[in-house]
């Protein structure tokens, strides 16, 4: 089936203050609440970040920054209009590459623009159905809107695009990573060259995939009945999409130039943005490969996953760089994902180095789980381990390993006289007992046990 998906994704920029006033995110002031008489003041830091995003997305960047007013009547806009960019976005004509099902995909970025976030409407937790709450603390947050051409071909691909975009923007530190600042996307979907349906305001990659899946099924179903999807704007409630506005009800935003902000030359801001921008993922991976003589593909993962600094710090204490790098991208990363932590939110790099230095890889793979999850140092883990060993008898250890089906099978084999099976069981006993018992002790025990 011919599916075309285009995305408009809103990324919150990681500034301390809002786009047009000096209050911190989460706070409010007369400017972001649209009091009479206030005027916007452009946050230059936000502009620099948007330029960096444009650069990452290989865009042509404008020479002057101009804003427009987008008008619509809804309670989430304190001024009754949103300051955004319509006629001349800060950047256009770029592309973004990402991997999907082992293939390289390239999607056209038609434009990148800067705009202010509206307030947040809260429908829950209020006494009557007649009222809503308006949270102005989000109003005026700096957003960068990234618009793709309708070139994505499936909900899965759209999801991968979002995840990859998130990873890259996170690497460059040009997106706000707070939970409430998650990517919000509007998606355009059409099938078999039918009418374009827009789904508004979908948070995150998973939700996007779900919304698109549902919408494509809906459109296909209509098609199977000989009907066609109408051009309209829909919402998504987590399960289904539903009509927000029909085409004829579409608002005319009546864009005009923003008269409170004169055009701003981007020459100096561009210079500044490029000067302070992080090295590209490729450059950084190459540098690490050269310095530590590790595999380039692994180095790239280290860089993309923002583990470079962690790796380099750990490498000061452990010079098995190749082992360390693989351990970080496979085991350590798995533990981070599992406990939903970032590298700087768990044990210090030094601890990973100590772990690898003092234990076998096999043990390290086990121990790292607890270290990451519980923020335990290598020393703490070691002490606990010694403690445990002291308490366990050989019988207890044997019972433990009996839980393993492979061990049960090995015991059967041993009973039939298979000596190789004995080696396997001894290995398991050693591991389970943290090497408290010697091979001879175990062998002696086994002879008794198997009689």
């Amino acid at each position, binding site marked *: 089936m011919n599916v075309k998906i285009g995305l408009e994704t809103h990324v919150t920029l990681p500034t301390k203050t809002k786009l047009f006033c000096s209050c911190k995110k989460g706070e409010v002031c*007369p400017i972001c*609440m*649209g*009091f*009479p*008489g*206030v*005027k*916007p*003041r*452009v946050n230059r830091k936000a502009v620099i970040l948007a330029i960096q995003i444009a650069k990452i997305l290989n865009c042509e960047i404008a020479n002057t920054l101009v804003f427009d*007013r987008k*008008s619509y*009547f*809804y*309670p989430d*806009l*304190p*001024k*009754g*209009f949103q300051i955004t960019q319509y006629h001349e976005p800060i950047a256009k004509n770029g592309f973004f590459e990402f991997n999907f099902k082992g293939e390289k995909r390239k999607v056209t970025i038609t434009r990148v623009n800067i705009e202010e976030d509206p307030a947040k409407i809260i429908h829950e937790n209020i006494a009557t159905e*007649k009222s809503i709450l*308006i949270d102005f603390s989000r109003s005026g947050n700096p957003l960068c809107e990234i618009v793709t051409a309708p070139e994505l071909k499936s909900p899965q691909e759209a999801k991968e695009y979002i995840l990859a975009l998130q990873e890259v923007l996170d690497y460059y530190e040009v997106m706000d990573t707070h939970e409430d600042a998650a990517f919000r996307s509007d998606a355009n979907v059409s099938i078999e060259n039918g009418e374009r349906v827009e789904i508004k305001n979908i948070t995150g990659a998973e939700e996007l995939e779900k919304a698109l899946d549902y919408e494509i099924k809906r459109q296909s179903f209509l098609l199977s009945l000989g009907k066609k999807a109408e051009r309209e704007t829909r919402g998504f409630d987590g399960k289904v999409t539903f009509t927000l506005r029909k085409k004829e009800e579409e608002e*005319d935003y*009546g*864009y*005009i*130039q923003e*008269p*409170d*902000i*004169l055009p701003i030359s981007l020459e100096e801001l561009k210079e500044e943005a490029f000067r302070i921008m992080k090295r590209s993922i490729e450059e950084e991976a190459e540098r690490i490969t050269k310095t530590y003589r590790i595999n380039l593909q692994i180095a790239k993962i280290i860089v993309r996953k923002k583990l470079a600094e962690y790796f380099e710090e750990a490498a000061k204490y452990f010079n098995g760089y190749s082992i360390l790098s693989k351990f970080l991208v496979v085991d350590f990363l798995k533990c981070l994902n599992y406990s939903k932590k970032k590298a700087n939110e768990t044990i210090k790099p030094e601890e990973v180095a100590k772990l690898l230095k003092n234990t076998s890889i096999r043990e390290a793979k086990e121990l790292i789980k607890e270290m990451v999850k519980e923020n335990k140092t290598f020393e703490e883990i070691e002490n606990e381990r010694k403690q445990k060993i002291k308490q366990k008898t050989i019988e207890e250890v044997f019972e433990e390993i009996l839980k393993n089906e492979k061990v049960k099978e090995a015991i059967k084999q041993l009973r039939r006289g298979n000596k190789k099976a004995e080696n396997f069981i001894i290995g398991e006993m050693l591991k389970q007992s943290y090497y408290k018992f010697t091979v001879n002790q175990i062998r002696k025990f086994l002879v008794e046990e198997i009689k």
Partner: protein
Amino acid sequence: MLKELVEKIKSEEIDVEELVEKKIEEAKKINEELNCFITICEDYARKRAKEVKQKIKKGEVANLKLVGIPFTIKDNILTKGIRTTAGSKILSNYIPPFSATAVERIEKEGAIIIAKTSMDEFGFGSFNVDVGVGFKIPKNPNDSTRVCGGSSGGSACATKKLEIPSLAESTGGSISAPSSFCGVVGLTPSYGKVSRFGLIDYASSLDKIGPMALSVEDSFLVYDIIKGFDENDETSTSEERSSEFKKKLAIPKEAFDSCEKEVKEKFIDSLKKIGWDYEEVSIPLLKFSIQSYYIIAMAEASTNLARYKGIAFGAQENVEGKNFREYFTKIRSASLGFEAKRRILLGSFVRSVGYKGQYYYKALAIRKKLIEEIEKVFKNFDAFVLPAMPVFPPKIEEAINLSPEKAYALDICTIPWNLCGLPHISIPIKEKGYKQLGFEVVCNRFEEEKLKKLSVEFENKLK
């Protein structure tokens, strides 16, 4: 002269509290007759007078330029803690939490605000008859059956009657027009020279705060205090320009031709008194400045007023709607005046899909072209001179019954300069009775220094 008055206050020859008390009493009295104030903030004024007096006693006022000078402020300029309505029912109980930069700057110099002046709702009018729902029309100080001009009508009327300066505001002529009708000096600075922070927006690319006073010198004294860059307004600037004197004045033909015969005659008489060379200059595009102005102004106004929809501002109890739209509509229908509605509707229309190209963009293009055309004239002339209004103040009833096209057309003497952001001043040609007329001088953008020199000289010769 303000300078002398300030010296007398500083030296305690005049008691600041007594002066303020006297002006408050006068203000109350004239307001009964002329409706020139929306709010007389007497408590605030007395408190400030006391503060200023203490400062004088402590000797802390040596370098201050407006010590103890009572001021009136147009009611679309925010004054912290003092109700500021922009002449509209929708803001009729709005008490701002901060002051406009211009207000802060005059208060820092020792000025004392005593009242907020009447205006056309949000500045939407040239005669001050388009007042908000529940507001009164201010009357001409020289003939109370006539209009005092708009939209800063209350400011002009108060300046004339109380003989104290005012902070007014012009979008398309709202300083010159009432200054001309009431017989006071009104200075409209270049766009951007005075911060608009704290000015309730009408049309952001056109709005300008400027002073009204009884003399050219006084108006520039106030201007010099309020001018200059303000970090709270991105469009503000400290830029100044100068050019050589050519000793030659231009009469803009297309505007001058629209003036009444008697206005023309009086003006030419005055021009002869001044004695400079002058020449009539034709700028055909000037004719389209009115359309261009109203399209841009209404387009911007219709967005600027979108915040008054009954959420943070203009909320009313017992108004319900089956959805947001209906609620907003009910609130706005009841709280905005007729002219405001007209401008919002037209403004929304000219920027809508399908019409934007014919109207909004064309208007922007005309503005750009007109600026270039006018720029050329300034190569050979120091200034444009013309009557500030093409007519004398009409009767209130006449003004109310004017069709909008006719009313808008009467802005021809002020709109071109407002549209192009050029500094201009209206100097009274001293006349008796209601037939007051302003002698308007227009200089190139940011050439306020030249404008000052010219107008000081012209004022002397017009005496």
